[in-house]
């Protein structure tokens, strides 16, 4: 989906927030368009929940504005905002049954009883839990509670649904099922999702747009493909998927020296003899016979992972991570070859500060 020509539904302008003198979100700027599935992705403690709470109205930013549909809602209390939240730990009302939980928002809005009953039935069907009206939340499994929390939010027909690691507590199988269910729900209801996760695979599978955060800064905003294939910096490359991140020297346009061997690449404009970081995904490293490769190495580890073999290759003093459907036994001497298109060159951060690329810098680049 392409959202670039759409007007933003939510605009976070220059948001900063600190707790106890510690800066948690630093001058953050973000636009979210109608119907977009935006995922905030980042390591634990990077400020994802805090940002979501600012959008939901549970936290006021120290500086900056939250614009919703062209209106400034920075100081609007949560009960007056046209969005609903699915909380990180469900937050179901334990003293009410499932039906009453789902009806809560509608009863507050004084909807007629038959409308409410209809909505409960519809929502329960949507989350595949028909007939659970009379159950108490504490008699439900984690996944079922999760789905009730989602049902409770969506019956209010919010324009935006905020989801804070809604699948965090579920096992892999259930998580995958729920991922499909959420995408189906979103398409059926046509609402904007702002989704928080620290699971990069989940982010890649579900989102239209991924916002990679670290320490309160946005590191990169892009489509899943863009973020995976063209990480802006070493943090993003390392955080999204597994990768080999290696110090290298850009000899000239389209030629890079990695661990003493020269590789052809496709990037230009880095200047001559400039230190850079290169990212090479494990599946992009080709293992060949010793003579056919650009770099020579020895297999040091071999693990069968089902779909592929995972190998570690010591070459040029670096432990390369390699995924391949073919395998070489431990101790075998191999050659390493990389397609020029699969070598991704990144600027080296000049200082600690620059490592956390702020959004302005990103916007200037694009």
């Amino acid at each position, binding site marked *: 989906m392409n959202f670039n020509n759409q007007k933003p539904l939510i605009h976070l302008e220059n948001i900063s927030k600190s707790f106890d003198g510690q800066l948690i979100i630093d001058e953050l700027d973000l636009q979210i368009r109608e119907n977009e599935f935006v995922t905030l992705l980042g390591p634990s403690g990077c400020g994802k929940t805090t940002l979501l709470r600012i959008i939901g109205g*549970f936290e006021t930013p120290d500086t900056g504005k939250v614009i919703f549909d062209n209106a400034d809602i920075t100081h609007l209390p949560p*009960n007056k905002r046209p969005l609903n939240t699915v909380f990180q730990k469900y*937050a179901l009302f334990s*003293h009410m049954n499932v039906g009453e939980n789902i009806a809560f*928002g509608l009863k*507050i809005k004084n909807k007629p009883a038959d409308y409410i009953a209809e909505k409960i039935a519809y929502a329960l069907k949507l989350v595949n839990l028909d007939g659970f009206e009379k159950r*108490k939340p504490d008699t439900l499994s984690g996944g079922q509670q999760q789905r009730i929390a989602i049902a409770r*939010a969506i019956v209010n027909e919010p324009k935006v649904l905020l989801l804070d690691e809604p699948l965090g507590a579920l096992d892999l199988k259930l998580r995958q099922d729920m991922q499909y269910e959420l995408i189906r729900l979103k398409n059926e209801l046509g609402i904007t999702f702002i989704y928080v996760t620290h699971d990069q695979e989940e982010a890649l599978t579900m989102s239209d747009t991924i916002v990679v955060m670290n320490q309160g800064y946005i590191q990169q905003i892009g489509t899943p493909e863009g973020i995976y294939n063209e990480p802006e910096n070493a943090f993003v490359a390392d955080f999204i998927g597994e990768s080999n991140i290696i110090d290298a020297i850009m000899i000239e346009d389209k030629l890079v020296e990695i661990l003493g061997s020269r590789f052809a690449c496709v990037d230009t404009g880095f200047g001559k003899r400039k230190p850079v970081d290169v990212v090479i995904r494990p599946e992009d490293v080709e293992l060949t016979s010793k003579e056919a490769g650009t770099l020579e190495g020895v297999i040091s580890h071999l693990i069968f992972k089902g779909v592929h073999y995972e190998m570690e290759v010591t070459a040029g003093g670096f432990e390369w991570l390699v995924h391949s459907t073919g395998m070489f036994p431990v101790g075998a001497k191999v050659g390493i070859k990389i397609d020029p298109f699969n070598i991704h060159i990144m600027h080296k951060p000049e200082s600690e500060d620059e490592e956390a690329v702020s959004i302005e810098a990103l916007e200037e680049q694009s």
Partner: protein
Amino acid sequence: MANLLRKKENNTFIIGSPYFIWVVIFIVVPLIMIFYYGLIDRNGNFTLENIAAIAQPVHLKALRLALWLGVIATVICLIIAYPLAYILSQTSINRYGFVVFLFILPMWMNFLLRTLAWQTLLEKTGVINNILVFLRLPPLNIINTPAAIVLGMVYNFLPFMVLPIYNSLLKIDPNIINAARDLGANSVKVLQKIIFPLSLPGVISGITMVFIPALTTFVISNLLGGSKILLIGNVIEEEFTHAGNWHLGSGLSIVLMLFIIVNMIISSIFDKTGEGNFL
């Protein structure tokens, strides 16, 4: 495996035994004695007369008054304690320590002394009336009235209402409240539909913890009610001390125990349904 289990049971028994002994000496033995004395007459024959004695007008009046003052004191405690507990639970300053300190502090002082202090304060020529007279206001004639007894009950038992409510309010996950606000509830709705129902277990245990000591007290009514106002506690005390009729005292105690048991059963039923379908 079986050995391991047995060993564990042994351990629990050893660790728990001081408590067990304490329970036997101070709870089980007195209970047995009360039932023993209550169910026999002076000649050692079985009788229900000591229990039936509750029907005598004097005793009935004392019981009714005790129930009535107990209810009033409990209601007043609840009205004061709930907002207080709510405000305390909202303040983040020094969360636990401060509150516990506030309520434990007066408890370090002897219960008798605190009640005696009220006697001095309330007396016809006591501190409060001196101040009132000095301000040219009419003096209060509260000492030796039921009002003074209720005041003493409220003063002494208020912490027992505040602490359980405060605890149950603290236990409410802030995210539950956030979720309610997120779904459109304003502060009044949040209080009415989320906070109050979820704090109900604390309210119930607070009611029990105030009502039972209020129902059975004799010290407060002795000191603040003069000798004219008799509560059932005073009657029983009288029988055990001055009248020396342990049989009648025990019989009336059994009746009072029935009221306490009924109170506890009602509160446990209410608690269960209360946690359930309150909406």
